């Protein structure tokens, strides 16, 4: 939401009444659930916005009343106009104004009655409910103003490619100059070709642009069906590589040998001198990527962990000064204790009338007493640290009630609290960790299923034999890796090893989903034992469970890094694997999550010089697996 000066001349390109603001940022909380007018506006400097304003007279307290919204029936009114706005519309301070630049995608649901705008992180900015008619007109208008592309994963989701991207802009301009239709259909075709024949397509693409110039405009029209067809095809291709586990017919199964796996001995851990060295006089860290790389290569000396973890877990921003940090800590301290007070002051009656809360509370109590009790820090009866562990988890329930508490979370918190020894610091670091791993704890476990499916996809690429073995032994669902993934190997490693392992993974280097490569490293190491013994589903599960306490962190990190480079340097690298690892992609469906334009990436990758900054989020690649297939294959073990 941006601030625009009031004096600007505004053109309303589209107006629709009777739109309820369903959800929005905190600053607009007073307007949530109230009805208003939705507009597309253009200011004199050319910037465009989606604006919503509450219905004129009503701004204050009674607006919250749901009844009111229903009673106040507004005449259906949709108009598209291009005149300047009458004077009374000039005071736009109460408007919820969202710049086109901030909208990276939008989703239509509830039979076009609900529209959600998302930001670059696919987080909703706000949601509108269309009480009269639907959002079709608005979306139609929107589509004439910005490029939109239907997501292949969700037919109700439309992605707005980043128009700010310099490469994209350049290409846009050249297309415009060529007078080729601005509809992205043609571009889609190019990208599709890049996917199929990267090198050839790159050169052909430019040749074809020339073709277009010489062709008459009547030949340039590419209709919407074309786009649909291309998208459909890419979806089908995509599905065939990810969901046919049980048949074992992978595109990648005939991949010739990968490059030889290289050795990546661990480096020296980040020490105090280096840590202070990267900070400026005021305590800012400019080059966080460099620090992360060092941690990725060698970890952190234990004495420095407490400090550095706060950065890795997004509690401290890298570029904040010492003074800003002090301010932040004091603010976070207050915030924590006010949340803690919320549940601390709950009466028994309140609890009894709040089943969801009570369930979470009981589960936490049960699990805290069974978390890391063998470690001195948590050992013994009435250990006060258990109470703190409990309190942090309870406060997290108040912080994120939807997620609440799920088994496994106490495992993730335990080492953090042990290290921080401070309730507040541990809480905020835990929040950062949960932000990275929250999909592991989805209500329906979709996040876990996706990861297991993604793991299979990657394994099938680097070791088709082993993946095929799992498939033919009722284990293609990779369920035996569930515990590894849920708590990031916490149960398999000693506390010390776990700490050095997690901090490496938190860096986000060298690629997305590196933890899946860790799994691959271990599985390929165990391959001979599993296959030579002809283990079936139960034996595989048992064998993997029994690796608990047997893993060597340095070795698995080394191996996983080796695998990463094998994959990266492989000439047969598929888009699916690229997507999973956040590598530059050749296919045409990569708008979300990518800073670079698909064009740039395609060209870059086809030149064989692909290098993009690693991305830190482990969750930003979320491929929806065919759930039915997953369930089936899991069930089929026992048929």
């Amino acid at each position, binding site marked *: 939401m941006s601030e625009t000066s009031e004096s600007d001349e505004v053109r309303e390109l589209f107006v629709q009444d009777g739109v309820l603001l369903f959800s929005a940022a905190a600053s607009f909380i007073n307007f949530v659930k109230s009805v208003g007018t939705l507009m597309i506006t253009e200011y004199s400097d050319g910037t465009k916005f989606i604006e919503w304003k509450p219905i004129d007279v009503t701004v204050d307290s009674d607006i919250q009343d749901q009844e009111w919204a229903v009673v106040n029936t507004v005449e259906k009114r949709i108009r598209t106009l291009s005149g300047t706005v009458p004077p009374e519309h000039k005071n736009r301070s109460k408007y919820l104004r969202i710049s086109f630049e901030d909208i990276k995608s939008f989703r239509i649901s509830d039979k076009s009655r609900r529209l959600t705008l998302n930001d670059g992180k696919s987080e909703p900015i706000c949601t509108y409910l269309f009480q009269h008619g639907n959002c079709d007109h608005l979306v139609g208008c929107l589509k004439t103003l910005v490029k939109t592309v239907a997501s292949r994963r969700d037919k109700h989701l439309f992605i707005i490619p980043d128009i700010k991207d310099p490469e994209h802009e350049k290409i846009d301009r050249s297309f415009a100059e060529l007078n080729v239709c601005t509809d992205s259909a043609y571009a889609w075709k190019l990208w599709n070709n890049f996917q199929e024949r990267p090198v050839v397509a790159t050169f052909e693409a430019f040749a074809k642009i020339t073709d277009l110039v010489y062709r008459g405009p009547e030949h340039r029209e590419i209709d919407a069906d074309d786009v649909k067809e291309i998208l459909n095809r890419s979806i089908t291709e995509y599905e065939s590589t990810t969901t046919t586990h049980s048949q074992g017919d992978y595109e990648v199964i005939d991949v010739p040998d990968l490059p030889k796996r290289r050795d990546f001995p661990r480096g020296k851990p980040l020490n105090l001198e280096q840590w202070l060295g990267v900070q400026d006089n005021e305590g800012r860290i400019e080059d966080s990527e460099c620090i992360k790389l060092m941690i990725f290569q060698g970890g952190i000396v234990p004495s420095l962990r407490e400090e550095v973890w706060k950065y890795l877990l997004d509690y401290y921003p890298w570029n904040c000064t010492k003074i800003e940090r002090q301010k932040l800590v004091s603010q976070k301290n207050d915030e924590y204790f006010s949340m803690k007070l919320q549940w601390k002051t709950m009466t028994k009656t309140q609890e009894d009338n709040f089943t969801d809360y009570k369930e979470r509370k009981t589960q936490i109590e049960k*699990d805290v007493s069974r*978390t890391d009790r063998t470690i001195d820090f948590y050992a013994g009866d009435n250990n006060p640290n258990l109470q703190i562990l409990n309190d942090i988890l309870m406060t997290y329930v108040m912080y994120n009630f939807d997620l609440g508490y799920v*088994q496994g979370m106490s495992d993730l918190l335990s080492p953090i609290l042990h290290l921080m020894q401070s309730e507040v610091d541990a809480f905020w670091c835990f929040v950062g960790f949960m932000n990275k791993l929250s999909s592991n704890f989805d209500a329906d476990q979709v996040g876990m299923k996706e990861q297991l499916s993604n793991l299979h996809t990657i394994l099938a690429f680097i070791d088709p034999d082993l993946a095929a073995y799992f498939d033919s032994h009722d284990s293609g669902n990779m369920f035996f890796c569930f515990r590894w993934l849920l708590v990031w190997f916490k149960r398999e490693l000693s506390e010390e090893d776990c700490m050095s392992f997690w901090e490496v993974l938190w860096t986000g280097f060298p690629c997305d989903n590196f933890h899946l490569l860790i799994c691959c490293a271990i599985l390929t190491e165990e391959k001979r034992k599993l296959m030579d013994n002809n283990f079936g589903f139960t034996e595989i599960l048992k064998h993997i469970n029994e690796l608990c306490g047997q893993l060597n962190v340095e070795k698995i990190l080394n191996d996983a890094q080796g695998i990463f480079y094998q994959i990266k340097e492989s000439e047969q690298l598929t888009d699916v694997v690229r997507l999973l690892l956040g590598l530059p992609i050749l296919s045409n469906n990569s708008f979300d999550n990518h800073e670079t334009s698909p064009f740039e990436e395609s060209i870059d990758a086809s030149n064989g010089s692909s290098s993009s900054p690693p991305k830190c989020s482990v969750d930003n690649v979320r491929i929806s697996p065919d759930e039915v297939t997953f369930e089936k294959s899991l069930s089929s073990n*026992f048929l």
Partner: protein
Amino acid sequence: MSSARVNMRPSSKNTLLKVVILGDGRVGKSCLMNRFVSNQFDEHSFHTIGVEFLNKDLNLDDCTYTLQIWDTAGQERFRTLRTPFYRGSDICMLTYAIDDKSTFSNLQMWKNEFLYYADIKENTPFPFIVVGNKSDLSSTEREVSQVEMETWCNENGITSYIETSAKDANNVQEAFRMAVRQWIKLETRADKNEIPFNDTVDLKTKHVEGRTSCCIGSGDE
């Protein structure tokens, strides 16, 4: 128990039985399994993540049964990843803690979940055994009486029930033996009623007349 008895049949017979232990968190599912399999008890063991299983041989009436015991995470959230493991079960052990009424109340839910996902035909008797764990606790801590347990079992047509203590190793072996006996009983009856040939144990168990639910108190046979 009866290993000294004269061997009436070939002793090489080994039957694999899949046993699923179900119940709320912290009732002692993993502890029961560990006590039974390795005779160990760890007061501060972890809660289970995912699924674990252990094998243990059990000799009963000169036959060897390999019990493949499956132990799952109890939280609702993990239901979709837990239930596929119910299929193909031979025995289901429904577990609660005698000091926690809510875990007892949830037995119905666990039983229903099991029957649904294990794909057991309706009205087919299935070898359930109800286990009230933590019998070592003092009577002041007890929230579920034995009578309540028996009543519930009778209402649900379950004839095998027992209180155990994984901590004190009390009745744990017995619970698993009882479960296997129950399996044998139902299996034998099924054989008599349906198929003339089988590969299961031919015990000298008398055919029990009537519905299972009518048999009261056979839990201590």
